[in-house]
């Protein structure tokens, strides 16, 4: 069993991380045709600095990802509170409807959104991509926060209220701090869903306004240049650092009780 586990781990590293390492290495390689021997250069980063469309796509990607994670987490947290703490008409229907979007292929969601946004006059562009990403991320947020809420007893808020807290104060003094690890995880997840999103963005992008995955895809079709590797390397570094910071924060939140 252990040998099998090790083999699996090795395969994971080989097929998942090795290609990424190669890509990062090639970002620093002088040859535009990916030929060896390896010659260290920062030339592609200079080229990248002059590639306007790629840079603006990167900026769009980050902007949408940050906005999506904040919006989706805010809306999703409130939805999760409503679903778990109150009872209202259509509650079970809403609960059921929240999950399928996770399983529906993005290609279908993307097509549907394109048609629907066209009809309703929402159209395409940054705002449309933001709406699409938020819609895609909310089910994940509700799922993560909902799991966090299950470990949170309802009588904690009651206890706070019996000591003079209004419902709003009880929420901010008791529920929110205890939900913090889940909220951080939800933020991170929503951020990742948005940053990763290609299909929906591809449908909703307009010429000149796209996100990094869409721009990379378009560039590759025109011919692969190592500046793609360069932007990917930067992106990789930024998202890896973000993930580590978030993981550390949420871990701290989870450990607070034990120290």
């Amino acid at each position: 069993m252990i040998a099998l586990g090790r083999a699996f781990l090795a395969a994971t590293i080989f097929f998942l991380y090795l290609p990424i390492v190669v890509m990062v290495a090639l970002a620093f390689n002088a040859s535009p045709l990916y030929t060896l021997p390896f010659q260290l250069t920062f030339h592609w980063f200079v080229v990248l600095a002059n590639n306007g469309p790629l840079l603006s796509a990167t900026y769009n990607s980050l902007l949408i990802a940050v906005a999506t994670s904040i919006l989706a987490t805010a809306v999703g947290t409130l939805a999760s509170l409503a679903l778990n703490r109150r009872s209202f008409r259509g509650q079970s229907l809403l609960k059921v409807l929240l999950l399928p979007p996770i399983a529906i292929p993005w290609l279908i969601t993307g097509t549907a959104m394109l048609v629907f946004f066209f009809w309703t006059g929402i159209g395409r562009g940054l705002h449309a991509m933001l709406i699409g990403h938020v819609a895609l991320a909310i089910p994940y947020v509700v799922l993560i926060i909902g799991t966090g809420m299950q470990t949170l007893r309802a009588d904690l808020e009651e206890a706070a209220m019996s000591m003079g807290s209004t419902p709003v104060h009880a929420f901010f003094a008791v529920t929110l701090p205890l939900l913090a690890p889940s909220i951080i995880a939800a933020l991170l997840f929503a951020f990742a869903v948005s940053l990763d999103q290609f299909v929906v963005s591809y449908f909703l992008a307009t010429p000149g306004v796209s996100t990094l995955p869409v721009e990379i895809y378009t560039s590759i079709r025109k011919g692969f240049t190592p500046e793609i590797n360069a932007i990917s390397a930067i992106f990789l570094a930024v998202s890896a650092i973000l993930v580590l910071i978030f993981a550390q924060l949420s871990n701290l939140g989870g450990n607070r009780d034990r120290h």
Partner: protein
Amino acid sequence: MIGIDIASIGKGYGALRVLDQVSASFKAGEFTSLLGPSGSGKTTLLRIIGGFIEPDDGQIRFGGEDVTHVPLWRRKVGMVFQSYALFPHMSVHDNVIFGLNRQGIKGEAARKEVARVLEMVHLTGFEQRKPKQLSGGQQQRVALARAIVTKPRVLLLDEPLSALDRRLRQDMQIELRRIQRESGLTTIFVTHDQEEALTLSDTVAILDKGRIVQEGAPLDIYERPRTRFAASFLGDANFFMGKSLAGGVMTPGGVIRTADAMPALGALATLAVRPEKMRLVPKGGADPGENIYTVTVREIIYAGAVSTFIGEGADGNQVKVLSQNRDITDVEHGQSVELAWSPAHTVLVVD
């Protein structure tokens, strides 16, 4: 100190009536237990008094003030939850000071109050601990400190001892009673443990199916149960059913007499007798005037200090007798013995 009055409280969920026309008075500074099996509505009643649930009808008064529609956070109650509901992200100090801060008591005055109640519950020095770093008994005492520090108008306890093991529970019963006396708070305690209700309370109210069936001092309720349910839920009881005579009932095993006033002659009546009031006597060994009932011994349960005998009357009526083992009673399985007890210990109950 103020008393609590509830009048005609009703609460239902759909077709289910959880509480039905419940009225009661909880005297100022007294410790009252709401005792009943699960589903009797005792917790619902406690939560209605606290303001956690709104009743469908009826009125709640705290010392004359109508609080029926006063929201929970303005009702000034202290509540100890079954799960303690301590805030896991706050220290003991922060948990206890929470209510004071909500009342606008801050700084040195608040710290003094926290120190005072923590001393009362013997937790001085634990201020900076988190709830997870405390034992069950300690968490329980923090919950209690948190509930009494604001000097609430009523202290509500929802089965707070049920999560503790037996030994700790007995210690906490004594502690709870001491703290309640020291603080002088009007206290309402919900429990399904009859022994707990008897030992802790000034008054016990027995609930059954959404109604208070009997209310009184533990001694009165135990010695003079009014209903068959009260007699069997609070302690053990033997029942004798038969047609009513003057001063007793006619059972297939003979006449059982009581000092209680009987209903109309010929009506079906039930008499209750506590197992410890009966004794096993040799044939003809009963004192004059005592009730005598002949049974066949079916079971002998020896438990050190006491033994329990289960006998069966001629009509199949099972009778339990509790006997102190000062002298070992010499009886055997299947032996026919006589039980003797005083008519004064024979209580008329209604079904």
